[in-house]
């Protein structure tokens, strides 16, 4: 009864074109933002912040990146892990070569390196589609995997072969490295993710998003309407890889603290792809839902096992969570193949007419 748009009249196209045209949605969004920016750092435990919220935001950003490519433009990519790696390694090189420049600037700049690599591997996309393109991006994944291991220059020739995140400060407060507080790292990530989500939302709601979706839904008609397929697809690759690259840099610098090339493997690509599919192809809010479900479910399951007080070894818990998560994913896909975003929409639609659905 509270969620109803009756009486909210739009008198201008600007208001009508707003991304959240319903007042209750705007209030809800404001509440979520306040909770995220103020509530979580004040009341969240260190464990909750650094093991739940930080990874969640990083994965959501990567999922938004892949969603732009796969969900909005219809180009299937299996190179997400590799593109994230490019961002992370670029950020590491940049901050070690120019340590005086603020780390947040380098995180945002490192996305452009990933962007360049993404465009390069997106070049075949004009000629090939669907599964064949997925295989082409798979080659990107394997090539980048190889490069991260085999080019010691990327990690400044250190013997461990891993990125070791140095301490960097913002206004005198350490934001990366071993001394950075979880709250500080969380707030930095949250700000970057919020900013990039707003930008993504702006893009997909305007001309550019419409051309992406046009290419996805009917490329022939799009071409005959004057949308240039090649440019549009490459732009999707560029923006998508930028997001993945920034997500990769954030992951290593603000979450892991150090990272071996193995974390940017094919597993990571599939992990993100699952999030996008479960969350909902072509939906930004779905990217957050997908990340929350795929990353959050094992944590909750482990908590449940601990609460019940079952006496089983951690290894068995691990296996059990894997199996349960797998089963739940299949279940979700049967119930709602269009993803959690669709469930969310249906829920809102039901709420709108509740309690008198006729």
């Amino acid at each position, binding site marked *: 009864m509270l969620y109803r748009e009756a009486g909210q009249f739009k008198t*201008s*196209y*600007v208001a*009508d*074109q707003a991304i959240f045209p319903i007042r209750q949605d705007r209030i809800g969004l404001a509440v979520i933002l306040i909770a995220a920016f103020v509530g979580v750092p004040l009341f969240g435990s260190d464990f909750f912040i650094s093991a739940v919220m930080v990874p969640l935001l990083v994965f959501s950003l990567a999922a938004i990146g892949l969603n732009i490519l796969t969900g909005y433009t219809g180009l299937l990519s299996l190179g997400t892990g590799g593109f994230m790696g490019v961002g992370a390694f670029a950020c590491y090189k940049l901050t070690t070569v120019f340590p005086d420049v603020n780390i947040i600037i380098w995180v945002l700049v490192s996305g452009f390196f990933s962007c360049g690599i993404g465009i390069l591997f997106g070049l075949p996309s004009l000629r090939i589609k669907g599964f064949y393109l997925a295989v082409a991006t798979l080659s990107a994944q394997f090539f980048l995997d190889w490069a991260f291991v085999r080019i010691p220059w990327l990690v400044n020739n250190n013997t461990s072969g891993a990125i070791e995140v140095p301490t960097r400060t913002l206004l005198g407060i350490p934001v990366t490295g071993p001394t950075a507080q979880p709250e500080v790292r969380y707030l930095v990530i949250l700000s970057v993710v919020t900013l990039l989500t707003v*930008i993504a*939302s*702006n*893009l997909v*709601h*305007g*001309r*550019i998003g*419409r*051309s992406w*979706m*046009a290419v*996805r*839904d*009917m490329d*022939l*008609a*799009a*071409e*005959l*309407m*004057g*949308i*240039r397929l090649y440019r549009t697809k490459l*732009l999707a690759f560029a923006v998508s890889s930028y997001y993945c690259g920034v997500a990769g840099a954030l992951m290593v610098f603000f979450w892991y603290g150090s990272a071996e090339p193995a974390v940017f493997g094919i597993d990571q690509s599939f992990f993100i792809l699952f999030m996008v599919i479960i969350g909902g192809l*072509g939906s930004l809010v779905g990217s957050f839902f997908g990340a929350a479900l795929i990353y959050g479910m094992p944590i909750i399951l482990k908590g449940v096992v601990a609460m019940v007080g079952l006496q089983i070894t951690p290894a068995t818990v691990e296996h059990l969570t894997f199996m349960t998560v797998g089963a739940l994913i299949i279940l979700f896909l049967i119930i709602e193949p269009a993803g959690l975003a669709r469930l969310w929409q249906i829920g809102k639609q039901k709420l709108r007419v509740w309690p008198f659905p006729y």
Partner: protein
Amino acid sequence: MRAPDDTPKSRTGDVLLSVEDVSLAFGGVKAINGVSFDIRQGEIRAIIGPNGAGKTSMLNVINGFYHPQQGRITFKGRTRAKMRPYEAAAGGIARTFQNVALFRGMSALDNIMAGRTLKMKRSMFWHLLRFGPAMREEVEHRHFVEEIIDFLKIQEIRRTPVGRLPYGLQKRVELGRALAMEPELLLLDEPMAGMNLEEKEDMSRFILDVNDYYGTTIALIEHDMGVVMDLSDRVVVLDHGLKIADGTPAEVMKNQAVIDAYLGVSH
């Protein structure tokens, strides 16, 4: 938007588009064989013929999707061996498809807005912000699109994803999307296919109104002879990739070659 033309106009103006001696083959199959005809400014030009005559291939040649092996295409005074889809679209050729080719995941409004893509000039930077010039541009085009929505009487479905609309409305949205490009030449590939009588009457009315109100030149492929005879100013008849007749509906109807092509000849 062009101002509506109130003065009674002579039905045919200058030649807007002409194809000369165009041939198109797929391997050994000759889809079009040395066809020439022209389309004059402001007229409704029908292209008819039995199945497999090369009508849709002809439209695909005109808007640059197929590249003919031979022949010339002159559009607005510029002659070239082949069109490119982008050039055709930028030059003012819009198109609807035999099987509806809408963007199924998008709303009717977004579909028609997508037709404005070529007219939108703001750079990526402003689109990142969705503020200032980008928003002004969006609203400006929204005004235009709303006029088309009013014109086609599809106000109540503007927020509906087009995949959920009935076929007749999908065809109408597709016409709207083509109109959003403000075309000088509108190619309609079987606009009435699969419609019932009432829907055909509506669609015919829209086609006449588009021609009359916006002054758009229209080339259409249609199988319903009644519609073709009523709507079109001139008809070109294709059969097996060859042009067998060209003229007013009345002339074409009496043409022996046309009657033979449609009814068959006893040998």
